[in-house]
């Protein structure tokens, strides 16, 4: 470093140069650090996208007021965006009001012959059960209009089953509890009367072709006299089951047909009294709220009865127990499998079923919660307490579907026989339950990598040993770059060859491929044995690999030639068919064997080049010393060279594995991309990387699915980064050790 002297410091030319020098120092410093920061940004950005998934939901109160209107409130509801709410009283009065402050927008007095005794809802369909045993279905609608870019909602009421009252109980007893469902071609109403009978009425709905208007006709009408007093009931949307909770810790399950109630109910005992029952979106899950604050999820699961026939059995799935007081009401979210409960201490808890997460809890501070209502988007929650007070909450609950258990554990999904690892991120139906287990994808990733390594490791390591230790220098000069250049071969080309060339070839010549694997090593040995009798063979020392190339070609030709004869003689002419018939092994055309061969080919250069470097840089004096002491070249290799170079070889293996794990195009093109968990070499897989490539372009930005895919990327990143770092550290240590020798 030149130190400026007194004379030069005052020289303006020197000052300019010194200034430039400083400038360059800052420029490079700032530039260098920011480039490195930019690279590290990848990790932090991925983390930044992933983290919100694991945060709990936020819920906070917006306002509290006495509900407008008169009488006792039996039902509250709220429109999609949470702007307008409504209540229905026991007097049949429907009041629409601004949900923020309770300002009344519209009042409708329904003309009913009797007092309303019970109300049930299916999102925006509502059914009122009356004191005289009749019922009526309503649907509230909001028409939006825009004035000066401000959205204004006009509420209104429709009658999906007609304005005529439906007779549910001919005896005219009050309907104490009611549950219903309206489908496109049918509708069902189940109700409990004051004198403990359960009524089930089913209607057929038909659409007039010309007027498009719906007509509703009575289809069947049945009844069950309860042996014990009942408390609550629900009817499933497919009109298949009614679940009725008794006063004495029991649940009755009624099976329904078009004709009405079928046979006797199946009863299920609980340890605690049931206080409330409800269904999740889609109706496949029954939520049972107990008096001790526990909520249990039950589903119909396929089972075998005594006669060995397939039946369905109501099965306990999981429980939620963040609440400690009697569950008063259960409100399912409209668009996913979440729900909120209100208990007798005034506590409201938001849960998510699939992930078994308790997302948020808030207390109304005013006694028991009587009714809850979700806005359709799940951003607003309305609660009504015992004193006719309305509590309005904002809910920020964007990623309830994900938890550690969902990602890495077995989850019992709706419609499945048992808990399982499943990846299925989207479907066409609205009540779909996303299945976001990363286990099948990670399994596929590891499986692909393992099969690739099975093929690559022997060739790369043995090849590296020969190249570094035994090969003639002139041959090594061409062989090493030839293999290393393969590392740069675009994997899209390898994937294309795998999918369109190798996969059909393997399918057609399956027997030949296996024959080739078996005959290659003995073939080499046979040639080596015969070579001993060739005079003047020592000229070719170090050129063994070149001599074997024709042998490899010959053996390949031979294996392909005997492929069909083998199949004809041993496997009835078709090995694939034989395998599936006799051994029960299925065969996909794009399978792990193909991936293993081609991806193995892609990682050979990585392993080869690192291992070869390690072997070649073993100090020559060690080798010469060993040979001088009389060891054969093989003994020298096994006892001296390999132990010295083993960390380098190991580091090469890790690098190769890291590359196989992250490889995208080959697996994308050479496997069927089905997320199955099966170690079979004849089946495909779906890997993390291929899954990202397939699904990210279609994932909605900032949705749970999008973030889970980012998580998959983060997992890949961390996995390969840790592997590579470990390999790198091992390599550096080795280098130090060699330089010490």
């Amino acid at each position, binding site marked *: 470093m030149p130190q400026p002297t007194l004379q030069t410091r005052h020289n303006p030319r020197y000052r300019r140069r010194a200034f430039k020098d400083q400038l360059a120092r800052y420029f490079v410093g700032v530039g*260098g650090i920011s480039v490195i920061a930019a*690279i590290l940004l990848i990790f932090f*950005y991925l983390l930044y996208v992933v983290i919100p998934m694991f945060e709990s939901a936020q819920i906070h109160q917006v306002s509290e007021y006495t509900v407008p209107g008169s009488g006792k409130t039996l039902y509250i509801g709220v429109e999609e965006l949470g702007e307008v709410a409504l209540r229905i009283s026991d007097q049949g009065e429907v009041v629409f009001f601004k949900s923020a402050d309770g300002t009344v927008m519209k009042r409708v007095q329904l003309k009913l012959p009797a007092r309303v005794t019970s109300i049930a809802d299916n999102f925006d369909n509502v059914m009122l059960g009356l004191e005289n045993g009749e019922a009526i279905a309503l649907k509230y609608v909001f028409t939006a209009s825009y004035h000066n870019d401000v959205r204004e909602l006009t509420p209104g009421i429709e009658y999906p089953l007609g304005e005529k009252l439906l007779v549910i109980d001919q005896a005219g007893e009050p309907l104490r509890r009611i549950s219903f469902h309206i489908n496109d071609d049918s509708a069902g109403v189940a109700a409990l009367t004051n004198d403990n009978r359960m009524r089930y009425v089913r209607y057929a709905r038909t659409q007039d072709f010309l007027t498009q208007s719906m007509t509703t006709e009575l289809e069947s009408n049945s009844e069950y006299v309860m042996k014990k007093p009942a408390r609550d009931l629900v009817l499933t949307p497919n009109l298949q089951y009614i679940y009725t909770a008794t006063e004495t810790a029991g649940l009755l399950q009624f099976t329904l047909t078009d004709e009405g109630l079928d046979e006797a109910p199946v009863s299920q005992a609980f340890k605690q009294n049931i206080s409330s029952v409800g269904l999740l979106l889609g109706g496949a899950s029954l939520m049972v709220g107990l008096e001790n604050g526990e909520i249990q999820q039950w589903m119909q699961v396929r089972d075998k009865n005594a006669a060995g026939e397939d039946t369905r059995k109501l099965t306990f799935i999981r429980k939620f127990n963040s609440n400690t007081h009697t569950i008063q009401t259960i409100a399912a979210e409209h668009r996913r499998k979440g729900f909120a409960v209100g208990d007798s201490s005034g506590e409201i808890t938001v849960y998510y079923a699939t992930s078994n997460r308790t997302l948020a809890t808030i207390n109304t501070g005013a006694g028991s919660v009587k009714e809850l209502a979700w806005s359709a988007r799940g951003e607003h929650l309305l609660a009504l307490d015992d004193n006719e007070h309305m509590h309005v909450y904002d809910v920020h609950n964007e990623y309830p579907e994900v938890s550690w258990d969902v990602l890495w554990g077995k989850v019992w999904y709706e419609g499945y026989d048992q808990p399982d690892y499943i990846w299925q991120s989207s479907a066409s139906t609205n009540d779909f339950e996303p299945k976001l287990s990363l286990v099948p994808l990670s399994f596929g990733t590891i499986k692909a990598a393992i099969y690739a390594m099975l093929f690559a490791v022997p*060739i790369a390591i043995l090849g590296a040993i020969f190249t570094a230790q035994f090969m003639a220098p002139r041959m090594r000069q061409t062989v090493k770059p030839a*293999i290393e*250049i393969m590392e740069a071969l675009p994997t899209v080309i390898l994937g294309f060859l795998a999918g369109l060339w190798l996969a059909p070839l393997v399918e057609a010549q399956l027997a030949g491929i296996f024959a080739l694997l078996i005959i290659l090593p003995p073939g*080499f*040995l046979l040639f080596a044995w015969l070579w001993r009798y060739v005079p003047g063979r020592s000229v070719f020392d170090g050129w063994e690999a070149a001599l074997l190339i024709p042998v490899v070609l010959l053996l390949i030709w031979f294996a392909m030639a005997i492929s069909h004869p083998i199949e004809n003689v041993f496997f009835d002419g078709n090995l694939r068919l034989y395998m599936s018939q006799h051994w029960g092994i299925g065969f996909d055309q794009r399978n792990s064997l193909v991936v293993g061969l081609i991806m193995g080919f892609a990682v050979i250069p990585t392993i080869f080049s690192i291992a070869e470097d390690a072997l070649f840089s073993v100090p020559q004096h060690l080798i010469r010393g060993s040979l001088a002491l009389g060891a054969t070249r093989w003994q020298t290799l096994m006892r001296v060279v390999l132990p010295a170079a083993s960390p380098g070889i190991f580091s090469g293996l890790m690098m190769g594995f890291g590359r196989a794990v992250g490889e995208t195009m080959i697996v994308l093109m050479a496997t069927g991309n089905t997320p199955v968990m099966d170690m079979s070499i004849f089946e495909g897989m779906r890997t993390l990387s291929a899954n990202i490539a397939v699904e990210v372009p279609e994932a909605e930005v900032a949705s749970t699915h999008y973030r889970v895919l980012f998580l998959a*990327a983060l997992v890949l990143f961390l996995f390969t980064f840790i592997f590579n770092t470990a390999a790198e550290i091992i390599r550096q240590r080795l280098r130090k050790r060699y330089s010490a020798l």
Partner: protein
Amino acid sequence: MMRSWFKSGDPWVWLNAGAISIALVAVFGLLGLIMVRGMSHFWPAEVYQFATSNGTLIAEMVETETVAAGSVPGIDISAGEIERHLVKTGNRDLLGSDFRWILEKDITRREQPQNLAVLERVEWGNFYGYLTAVYQGDEKVAEGDAAWPGFLQRLDRVQEIRAQINSLERDDIGAVNYKIERLRLHQRSLELKGKTSPETAAEAEAERAELDREYKDLQTKLKGLYAEINRDAITARVMDGSEVKIPMQKIVRAWQPNNMSLLDKVGFYFQSLWNFVSEDPREANTEGGVFPAIFGTVMMVLLMSVIVTPFGVIAAVYLREYARQGLVIRIIRIAVNNLAGVPSIVYGVFGLGFFVYFLGGNIDSLFFPEAAPAPVFGTPGLLWSSLTLAILTLPVVIVATEEGLARIPRSLREGSLALGATRAETLWRVVLPMSSPAIMTGLILAVARAAGEVAPLMLVGVVKLAPSLPLDGNFPYLHLDRKFMHLGFHIYDVGFQSPNVEAARPLVYATAFLLVVVIIALNLSAIGLRNRLREKYRALDN
């Protein structure tokens, strides 16, 4: 004797040798496969007329294989092995598919008629048949032996008109459309800023009227050209003996493969090769050329190089020359090294999330509010692809440059400093020039890697068919926001997403071969440079 042979360890050495032989066979086998399949596609194959037990068949031979009789439907397993041929019959519009299998034993006679013609068409793939007559309008102008020369002459004319139509549609009408769109955006932007006035509106109206008129003129001209190109037609006899009429505007190229001399064939071969690299793709990318894909790849790689070189070099200079060497720098160095091993799809995800949605989304809302709701930069495009690949290849450049810097002998630096040069001057005048081959090596390796990457590009900007090139004659000439085509993605798309994989396969091999050649050439030059560099410094050291 056997035992002592095994004891000597020699057999194991031979097994090791076998491993490397397998690797070599695999490497050269795959390269050879790609080359043979890719390059043979352009050779004008002979067309046969087969007489089979199921009628006449006019087709090219594609491949021949022997299969176990059991796997062919309708053949008894006792037949043992049978030979069958995959033949290309073309005429997809008449037959439903281009290819079919025929059994060797069904063929009773095969011949190669001289006057059998192959027509490459704009759609429906190739046509095989005998030319019978040439029509101008409804009037027959040539038939019999005179038909072929007359046809070729008219085909030249058709090709000329087609070139005019293409240039008119793509360049002139495209430019007018582009101007109209810009005018609309300009108006909208004024509206958003509240700067609209009757004057600006009138001005815009006048401009629009002018453009509309220009557009109409071009349309009229185009209509005239279409009338011209539709004038001629031919009739041809196909293999079942029926005659079909083909408008000449549907024909791209025509040849009689059985009537060509070797020289003709070689000429034809290079002509096909040229068409392949210079033409636009047709028929969902399964026919025609790959020019836009080559162009897109080159543009993307160039942009990436412009970004990656300065940043990579600065980072390397910082790490090697300015930063205090210690544990932190060692950790950073290992981290940077290992980023090269992070799966490329991870970079793609990062690029999509950070560049496209985050940066792009913000750029749109700040600078292009007038385009909303259509995104400008908030959607995958050329700029984001280049940036993503720049980050992906940054470690390569940093590592190579650092290596180059480390190799510069200490004596040279010290000499420079001793002569009174400042550190910056030493860096600029001595160190960087001397390490430029290393920087070049890094850059070449980066380019080779970027040219072959597909997975991240699928997320940040590559499409199967881009309507326009990212570089054209419309201001601002270089359109960084446009999506582009890429050779690697082209391979994936045509090989796996196209409706007619069998017909497209030779083209995929050809594309693959093109890509392999480019990448191997780049890598070889990088290796060459590195070796030269090493020699040079070895000399300096002594």
